[in-house]
């Protein structure tokens, strides 16, 4: 039997480390059935972490979820007794299983399946088969790019540019030295698929990069990983060492003329360094600020040499395409958007985690079919796609299919796949303000439109959510949005207005209510709401009064309570504490 603990960052954060230690201790004391203990990366079901996968002697998988340290003994006992029905209480429900079953996994094919720290495990799962095939069957650079072209693979980092086009441009660019760079600076709040790939299947990234490097003629590669991903760096470092040791990295790979070395550069945490030219500046040791394009990196990138940059998820698809053929990839998806896309589902969703679906799937299927709809049976309001560079899509557009163009038509973008779900209690003005606050802070400060424009927009949104909006503010925001889109230097600035523009497009009434009526329809903006207790409902349990940090609630036990508005700081603790729904927001 094999006991595999999900140890991606999400699993570890949920307590997988403790479970692992406990199991290790138990098996170390006595392991009569010679059970193996192993780890794997995140399988995407973050809402069920920590997850322990037990493969019985028939190789059948028994998935145990929300495992706590205290459950270790029971799991141990079940394994030793060879009877997993003993831990049926921990077994995943059929409903939750649907989360995974409804997906189609390409980029995440081995995440949560293999041991990310074992190159042998990777090799056992068709690992390095693609690069071996290329190098030993004499596929030319063009042959490889041709497959990527047929596959219709587009950049998964945000802009969705044709990967084959970029590779050809870099290949055709003259230069004694070329570089292949991986953008693993995943900075969108709410997106974490790249981390999951590196932590869960680092060799798939290395193999994808090897194929890319071969195609453009690069001999040196760099993975730019944000320093906030320490586990990813550890696992990727080990993977690079192992791959080098096995001859998949280094000189004359697979006995061919092709040589490629790979190293890691840890980024310092600036969002703008996810922009490819700023990333290159940062790689060169400079302040992370975008360069003007043209010249594009394919002509003059790292150290002004021809360079190709793709993000992690893009590279993670490459080996699969070579192994299965471009047509197999292109068979999935829509006319313009082929293959699958990973989304990081978060927010007010019932089942949050990583979801990989074929292009062409509707947003409704992802959110309701896989994500299980809205938590606590609330109303769906909107979903933010593409993080701070994207936009919100309202309920009326839920049947939009996942496709670069279709999503762009809504005003949002595919982006890197962040999907933040909002319910009726989310204030859209406040949400737009949140994302703009992010971009304003993350603006590198180089170009005027972004540096000053986002600041001025933020000030306007600040006053709107504070109930001090002025007539004409929405129009002023629109003006600034279009000016910034037109004038900003890089993708960060050009897309920064998107969350605000879509909010204006779909939720203008809500903004206007803040301005004209000093009212927050979602009841979220502190300056515009007040909490009170419905005397007819209150049973005088005193729970609210005990939770109030400023002692604004008075009342005798078993008597209706009251909130002193002059003291109340509108923290909402009372509303959370009340089990009778007596606290009302107005």
């Amino acid at each position, binding site marked *: 039997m094999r006991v595999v603990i999900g140890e991606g960052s999400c699993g570890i954060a949920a307590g997988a480390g403790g479970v692992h230690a406990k199991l290790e201790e138990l098996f170390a004391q006595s392991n009569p059935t010679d059970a193996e203990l192993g780890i794997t990366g995140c399988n995407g079901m973050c809402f069920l972490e920590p997850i322990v996968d037990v493969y019985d002697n028939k190789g059948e998988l028994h998935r145990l979820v929300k495992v706590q340290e205290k459950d270790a003994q029971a799991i141990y006992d079940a394994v030793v007794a060879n009877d997993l029905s003993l831990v049926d209480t921990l077994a995943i429900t059929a409903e939750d299983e649907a989360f995974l079953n409804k997906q189609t996994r390409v980029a995440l094919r081995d995440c949560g399946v293999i041991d990310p720290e074992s190159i042998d495990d990777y090799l056992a799962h068709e690992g390095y088969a693609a690069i071996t095939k290329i190098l030993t069957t004499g596929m030319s650079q063009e042959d490889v790019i041709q497959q990527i072209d047929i596959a219709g693979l587009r950049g998964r980092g945000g802009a969705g540019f044709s990967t084959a086009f970029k590779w050809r441009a870099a290949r055709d660019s003259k230069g004694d030295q070329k570089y292949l760079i991986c953008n693993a600076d995943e900075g969108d709040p709410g997106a974490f698929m790249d981390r999951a790939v590196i932590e869960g299947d680092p060799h798939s990234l290395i193999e994808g990069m090897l194929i890319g490097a071969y195609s453009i003629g690069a001999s040196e590669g760099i993975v730019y990983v944000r320093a906030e991903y320490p586990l990813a760096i550890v696992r990727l470092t080990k993977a690079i060492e192992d791959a080098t040791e096995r001859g998949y990295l280094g000189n004359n790979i697979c006995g061919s003329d092709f040589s490629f070395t790979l190293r890691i550069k840890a980024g310092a945490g*600036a969002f703008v360094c996810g922009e490819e030219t700023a990333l290159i500046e940062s790689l060169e040791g400079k*302040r992370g*600020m975008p360069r*003007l394009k*043209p010249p594009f990196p394919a002509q003059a990138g790292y150290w002004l040499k021809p360079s190709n940059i793709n993000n992690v998820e893009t590279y993670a698809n490459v080996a699969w395409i070579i192994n299965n053929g471009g047509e197999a990839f292109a068979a999935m998806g829509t006319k313009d958007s082929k293959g699958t896309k990973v989304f990081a589902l978060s927010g007010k969703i019932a089942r949050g985690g990583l979801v990989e679906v074929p292009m062409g799937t509707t947003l409704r299927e992802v959110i309701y079919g896989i994500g299980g709809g809205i938590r606590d049976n609330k109303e769906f309001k909107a979903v933010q796609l593409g993080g701070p560079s994207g936009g919100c899509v309202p309920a009326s557009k839920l049947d939009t299919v996942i496709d670069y163009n279709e999503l762009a038509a809504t005003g949002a973008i595919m982006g890197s796949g962040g999907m933040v779900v909002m319910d009726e209690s989310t204030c859209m003005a406040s949400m737009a303000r949140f994302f703009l606050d992010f971009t*304003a*802070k*993350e*603006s*590198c*400060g*180089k*170009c*005027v*439109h972004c*540096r*000053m*424009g*986002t*600041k*001025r927009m933020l*000030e306007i949104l600040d006053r709107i959510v504070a109930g001090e909006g002025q007539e004409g503010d929405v129009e*002023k925001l629109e*003006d*600034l949005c279009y*000016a910034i889109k*037109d*004038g*900003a*230097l890089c993708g960060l600035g050009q897309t920064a207005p998107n969350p605000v523009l879509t909010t204006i497009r779909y939720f203008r009434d809500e903004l206007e209510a803040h301005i004209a009526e000093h009212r927050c329809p979602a009841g979220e903006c502190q300056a515009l709401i007040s909490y009170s207790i419905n005397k007819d409902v209150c049973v005088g349990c005193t729970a609210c009064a005990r939770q109030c940090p400023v002692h604004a609630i008075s009342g005798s036990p078993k008597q209706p309570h009251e909130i002193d508005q002059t003291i109340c700081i509108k923290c909402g603790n009372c509303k959370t504490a009340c089990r009778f729904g007596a606290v009302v927001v107005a």
Partner: protein
Amino acid sequence: MAITYTIDGVTVTAEPADTILTSATRAGVKIPTLCFDKRTAIYGACGVCLVEVEGVPKLLRACSAKPQEGYVVHTDTERVDRARRTALELLLSDHTGDCRGPCKLNCPAMTDCQKYVNEIREGKYKDAVSTIYEAFPFPASIGRVCPHPCEDACRRQMVEEPISIAFLKAFAADKVEADGDPYVVQCEPNTGKHVAIVGGGPAGLTAAYFLRRYGHAVTIYDKQPKMGGMLRYGIPEYRLPKAVLDREIAIIANAGVELVNDVQLGRDIDFEDLRKRHDAVLLALGAWKSYNMRVPGEDLEGVIGGIEFLEHLGHGERPTLGEKVAVCGGGNTAMDCCRTAVRLGAKEVYVVYRRTRAEMPASDVEIEEAIEEGVTFKFLTNPIEFYGKDGRLEGMKLQIMELGEPDASGRRRPVPVEGATENIAIDNVLMAIGQGANCEGVAEELLTQRGTIACDELTFRTSMDDVFAAGDVTNRGAGIAIQAIAEAQKAALCINNYLEGDEVRAKIPYFVKQEKTPEDFEDEPKQNREKMPGLTPEERRNNFEPIYFGFTEEQALREASRCLECGCHDYFDCRLIKFANAFDVDPERFAGFMHKREDVPVASEVIVHDPDKCVLCGLCYRMCDQVAGKTYLGLYNRGFSTVVNPMVPEEARTFCASCLKCVEACPTGAMKSVPAVERKTCIV
């Protein structure tokens, strides 16, 4: 291989190394930029060089975009204009400073006070006079009589007292005259156009001066025997000696202005005829009629209009006054009247004013000097009746007043105290409560109900295309001389525009301004204002001798050295303000938080960086890195908080060799060096 494309219809040839910016600039199509300089690598920060290319969905940065064969580029579309203007407005919404000093901005004629005060400080008196002549042609006269709004705005008063700007002006003009090197007007070649000006006062003469400079022929018609208007006939000799005025009028006459005196519109010359004989007419008739008090007894002998009284004096007459004289009014004309009455021998002189001293429009110094000369001020009194015997004035009845609620002007309104009156015995009343125009001979259709001439505030044009008006005669009413001069200066520009067939309107320029408080000057060493030497009250009260002697050169140099130099040192080279005006910016649209940061010493004593003027074009640190070969400067922080700073701690700042490349390339006044270096931009 070279390619060709068009930009704004101009065909441009571009080499492979060219961008749209470099090739267009070479072809003479100007594209604004703040952050490009060919000595450094392309940067693309400012967004001011955006252009539109047909068929390209995005606007392109001209500094980096490579032109392609057949490109059709536009720099003048609404979209380009809006994008560039937005970039400038966003920059200006966090750009703190004073483009020009408060002195200049508060002068109706926008005289560059800071410039000439500093030219005086450097002993360049002729330059100082030339600077003043850029605004108007009466430095010696106005320097003596102007109530100097410039000094009211002077920030030196936050240290101790304002700079004595007006007297410095008179000093410079007197000095060049004494040195035998007076100003000579330089005129453009003759245009063949001829302008008639009716009225030879400060407005008429100023307009004549500017119109001559533009190259037009000018004739001034004036009803008085001599030119000068109110400067001659309204201001007594002791304040403005006629010889000083004569000298300055002579400079204008020498520029070729034809002066015709003793002709009155409607009597000696016909308005329509004047229009026929000239390409344009400027009406600068002034306001020569004292307002009546509208109280009983005004027709009594001994009740005289203040202006008429001064006019007689100006003609060299010495009107006879009784022993007791009351002057009604609180303005500078009232002061001229009461002090003249003292000089004519009146024993008791009263100024009757219905509010208090705080509300008096007359300058403080005039009030002070009147008191010194023995004038009695009766505040909060209002004449309600003049009485007398046999048609001859004997006294006046005064209503006692008190101050009530503020009126539209913000001053507290005087209201009668019921039943409280006072009678005083007097021989003469001089009415100086205001003055109106006398527009006899002017076409009826040009007049307002109040009998002034109606003209537009920005074009100075009347309802007739070729007829303009300026000064006290217009619908804006009578004011101080420098206001009339300021109007004439702008009217002359409008007339010139009209004669050249351009848009007539005078443009109001945009300036960056800031507010300062005394706390900002706490560290400034104190140095009081120079005292103007002059006659004592005893020496001056019985004659019309000039009361001031003028500054000595030592005094002038000391006084000029007090200037705080509020206006930006880089104004004339600043590209930001140049573009701001070219694009008609309105930075108020994006008003928000503005930084207030300390100046950063870059290289001690030599280079100082003002982050609040910085537009983050990056030229300073890029010049340092890419041209000077140092990496001494760099960017700190992110987003809105980004700032240029030395990259090394203060004790290590000897690293900087003060090559001044950073200062040289700065497009605004953010980088400042001592001594200053010439600013330079290299586009091609």
